């Protein structure tokens, strides 16, 4: 059980950094947004992992429950809304990418900078 916990946190760290790599290293703007989504998902995973209580169940009362053990509902509330806000901001980012493509004819960051320098 202990190893599984560490493994969860490690997967979080690796996913976070894969997303980070896509954001800093890739020049394609759509790829950067994909990286941002991965980064976001990694944070979601961390929060939900922290809320888990061993032997617990989803925080919903059922009629025949005697002394139930629930996982922490608060991170779940936070992440639930964060997912929907995340897709809205991603959509806004994609909208900006589409407009950049229409004005510059490219979505590669270094080509955009070359055009700007001219």
């Amino acid at each position: 059980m202990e190893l599984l916990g560490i493994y969860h946190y490690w997967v979080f760290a690796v996913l976070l950094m894969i997303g980070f790599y896509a954001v800093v290293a890739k020049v394609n703007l759509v790829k950067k947004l994909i990286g941002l989504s991965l980064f976001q998902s990694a944070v979601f995973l961390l929060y939900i992992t922290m809320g888990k209580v061993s032997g617990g169940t989803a925080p919903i009362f059922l009629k025949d429950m005697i002394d139930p053990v629930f996982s922490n509902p608060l991170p779940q509330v936070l992440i639930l809304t964060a997912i929907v806000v995340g897709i809205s901001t991603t959509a806004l980012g994609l909208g900006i990418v589409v407009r950049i493509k229409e004005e510059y004819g490219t979505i590669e960051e270094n080509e955009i900078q070359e055009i700007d320098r001219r």
Partner: protein
Amino acid sequence: MTVLFSVFLLTLLVITAIAAVQSRNLFVSVMLLGIFSLLIAANFLLLDAADVALTEAAVGAGISTVLFLGALALTFEREHRPTPHRWLSLAVVFAATLVVLYATFDKPKFGDPGAPVQVHVAPWYIEKTPEVIDVPNIVTAVLASFRGYDTLGEVFVVFTAGIGVLFLLSASHGHAAQRRPDNGDESKIGLRNDLIPRVVGRLLVPFILLFGLYVQFHGDYGPGGGFQAGALIAAAVILFALVEGEERTLEAIPRGALLALMVSGALLYGLVGVAGIFLGGEFLNYSVLADDPIAGQHLGIILIEAGVGLTVTGVLLSIFHAFAARDRF
């Protein structure tokens, strides 16, 4: 067994993420991102977060994939340039990974009931929910009532993002222009000529809509609520649009109706809050909405969840149509 499954899912997550970043073909990357979302949703379910899993599956694997594909259709499907300064970036990322990994050793044990996050305010919410609000789903109680103010803020963030996308993509600047309505060959629109998508799509759409409504109104009792229902209903309409073509979808639900949905949802939420003030309570205090405080809470939660559902449906569909109406040139 569950442990094995967890490890398997987490490993798959890392592999999909690496493949999504590595692939030069953006179409492949987007598809892998959809798979990634579905896998992480399964993981959330294993971690007891049923509401979050439902949202992630509907939003991440469904709507996000469609929006990315819509953006790809308007831009390019391939990365043109190789990654510059690749080894420098990798070195920086590797160093940062080591720091984060080092920090994980100080984290409380996985599933520890005595971890700081479990003993601070969480027990209060679990204890007070049956007493003050009396809905079985604690997540809904916290989302809609205890922290209703935050959720109002989130709804307005979603609303603002929708307005932003509409502003960005409805401008006809430079050589870009709105697409003229397709008067030409009707049969070429959508997937209407492909038998299997058409039959499956037509069969599934009503059931997805029904499930969306169930999730909306059953959110007090089981996993669900306005955010999930909004995403599900939007996904059903988007599926209809993919099968039958965008024009026919706009005939069924015109753009004006979507704008009205967006605005009315956010307004409904705000008005419930103001109604609380006029009936002698605080902003977003639902206890004063009915004679019995518990009944008032139930009424308030149903109303604001409806507001959330309306806004999320309206915003996601407006964004979809904004991308779909933009012409490729």
